[in-house]
């Protein structure tokens, strides 16, 4: 199977994720964008495992992808907790408001 389709998809997802992280104001959407980038990486890992080491019984790429899914879930947990706290304190989930660590 040609790897072009999955790689294009991954590139598109990553770009969308970068765009979301930089441009979106809503903290929840920023978190989602981070998930998009992680998943783009997952796709890339699986794609290159199959492209470079087809039939190899040690499926390192897939294993990495599984780990990333686990870590991403934890990360979303922590991230959402921060967002909740932020909302509680300021009644807003706009990341532009969270600029306490400035000059």
């Amino acid at each position, binding site marked *: 199977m040609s790897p072009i389709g999955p790689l294009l998809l991954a590139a598109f997802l990553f770009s969308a994720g*970068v765009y979301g*992280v*930089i*441009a979106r104001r809503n903290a929840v959407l*920023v978190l989602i964008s981070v998930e998009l980038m992680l998943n783009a990486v997952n796709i890339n890992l699986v794609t290159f495992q199959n492209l470079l080491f087809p039939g190899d019984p040690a499926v390192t790429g897939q294993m990495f992808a599984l780990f990333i899914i686990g870590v991403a879930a934890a990360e979303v947990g922590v991230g959402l907790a921060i967002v909740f706290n932020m909302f509680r304190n300021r009644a807003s989930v706009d*990341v*532009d408001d*969270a*600029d*306490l*660590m*400035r*000059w």
Partner: protein
Amino acid sequence: MDALLEYTWVVVALPLLSAVLITAVGKQLPGKGSEIGIAALGLSWLLAIGIAWQTFVASPVEPLERSVDWTPLGGGFVFELGMLVDGLTAVMLLLVTTVSFMVHVYSREYMQGEPRYTYFFAMLGLFTFSMLLLVVANNLLLAVIGWELVGLCSYLLIGFYWEGKSNQDAGNKAFLTTKFGDVGLIVGVIVLSAGMFGLTDTPFNILEINEAAVAGQLSTTTIVLGMLLIFLGCMSKSGQMPLHVWLPDAMAGPTPVSALIHAATMVTAGVFLLARLYPVVAQNQAVMATIAIFGVLTLFFGGLLALVQDDLKKILAYSTISQLGYMVAAIGVGGYAASIFHLFTHGFFKALLFLGAGSLIHAVHSNNISDMGGMAKAMPHTFWTFIVGSLALAGFPLTAGFFSKDEILIAGEIWAGAGFFTGSLVYWVGLAAAFVTTFYMARACFLIFAGENRSHHTPHESGKLMLAPLMVLAVLSVAAGYLLSPFSPEQPNFETWLATPLLTAETTFPFTDEGTAAASGLVGDGVLAAGTSLAAAGDGPVKVLHGVPTWHPDLLAIVLVLFSLAVFLAYRFYGKGLPERDPTLSMGRFTDVLVAKYGFDDFGYRYIVVPVRDKLSAAATYSSNVLIDGMVAGVGRATKNAAMTTYRVVDQQVIDGGINGAAFSAAWWSDKLKRIQSGDVQKYAGVLVAGTILLVLAFAAAR
């Protein structure tokens, strides 16, 4: 036998010690310090007698010189602190300590009740020390120090009664006039020593200067210039015309001071210095002629001034000037021994006359002889001592003044015989002045002692402390003459006493023609008023050229005639008391000239004092206050301005500006840079991505 001579410095040190002690503790003592002065001077006197005796009986002696290097003068030259003891020194030591001791004793009574009694004795001690320092100095610089110190003491003691303005003026006049000559003295000393620079490390040493002069190592220019300048100092100090003007005014001081300083010792310092440098003087005819002419002028015209004086002390002052003229003239006509002999005898009889005058003034409370009269009965001891002094001063035969003055006249005669005009000048003018001297002293004596008492006081004889010095000095005024008289032995006598080994027939008066000089007896086989090398003359007594004085019947006759004539004239005018018209004051224009003192004072006041006071001091004040102060202030202001400019530009702008600029630019930049840390995480992420893209592109391009 030299043992005692080694202690000559003690003679000098004792009066200084006395002055210091009197200043320190004098006021607490019962005698208010006078006992210290008398004791110290008594010891000094005894020691001086011992030294004089030793040098006299063994005369002529080799000079004894002892010195320590005091301080280097630079250029390898050394300033010595030392003493030179020979016959001349011993004579002066004896004279100074004797008169000083007598004056100390006399002042104990005379100054009784003065408010500054202790100060007076301290000053007497200081003066005696200074004079002795001058006398024993072995180099000219030390002598100049003594010379200036005696000038200072003279100034302080003339102004002793400083409450009176005229006394202050007299002190200032004396100080400034002598100081004028002192400039000549110091320059002359330097000129002389400059001639010695190549020859020795101690160019101021008197013996070495004399030796060099005798050996012909000093150029004529050095000798003439040096000695004439030194003679200028001697003129001012020894009251030679026209620098004598201070001496009569100096009589403002207490009478014992006049006796000690202004008659017997300080004023003879100039003559002493000329005698000290006589081997140098004797090298040049021009120097000797100059000295002789000034001496002759002074001895005659100074004496004339005494004719019109009413103040007894001023009569004596002018007579001192006149007698100093004799001494200086004697130096100028080769009468080295005669000059010092006259200095010696004059010291005694003039001190006697001044102390006698003090006794009279004490009794009648006036200095004027017109206020005295008839004192012979009331004050018998003062009377006879004063008469003895007057006779000695007038040169009455067989007194000390007779022998010494005749020595001077004989010296003039011999000099004239050698073909020098100044010799006859000294001889004839000296005789004429002797007549004048006799006349004014006879005038004073008649007015004081004969006739009726014109004072408003009942005169009383002075106490023992005042009479004892008078009697001692009266004896000396006669006895001192026999040191060099037809009665004295060939050796020792006063002339062998003064002999120095430097002057031989060959080295003295090199300007004389040998034949005439020998024929006239000026030079010859014997040693001059001084000796050949004393060591060479070891086999037998040293002969002095002139030998023992012989009687000169012609001179004796002239002197006796002049004396009788003068006394007779004086008796006719004054024998019966003060005439209504004093003859000396009734001589028309002649009297006017004498009363105006030849106009020296007037001239000095109008052309020296006034211009100096009004022009020179004003100019000096202007140059000091305006020019020099202006320069100093200008430099100060310029410095201040430069400092202010430096402060404003360099410190405030460059240095502070640099440091402040660094600080401000750091602040400015940090203000700009801090805005990067906006706290906006998305912006950081954007920059991060942009950076990554740039890096990727860069690496890609690099491949």
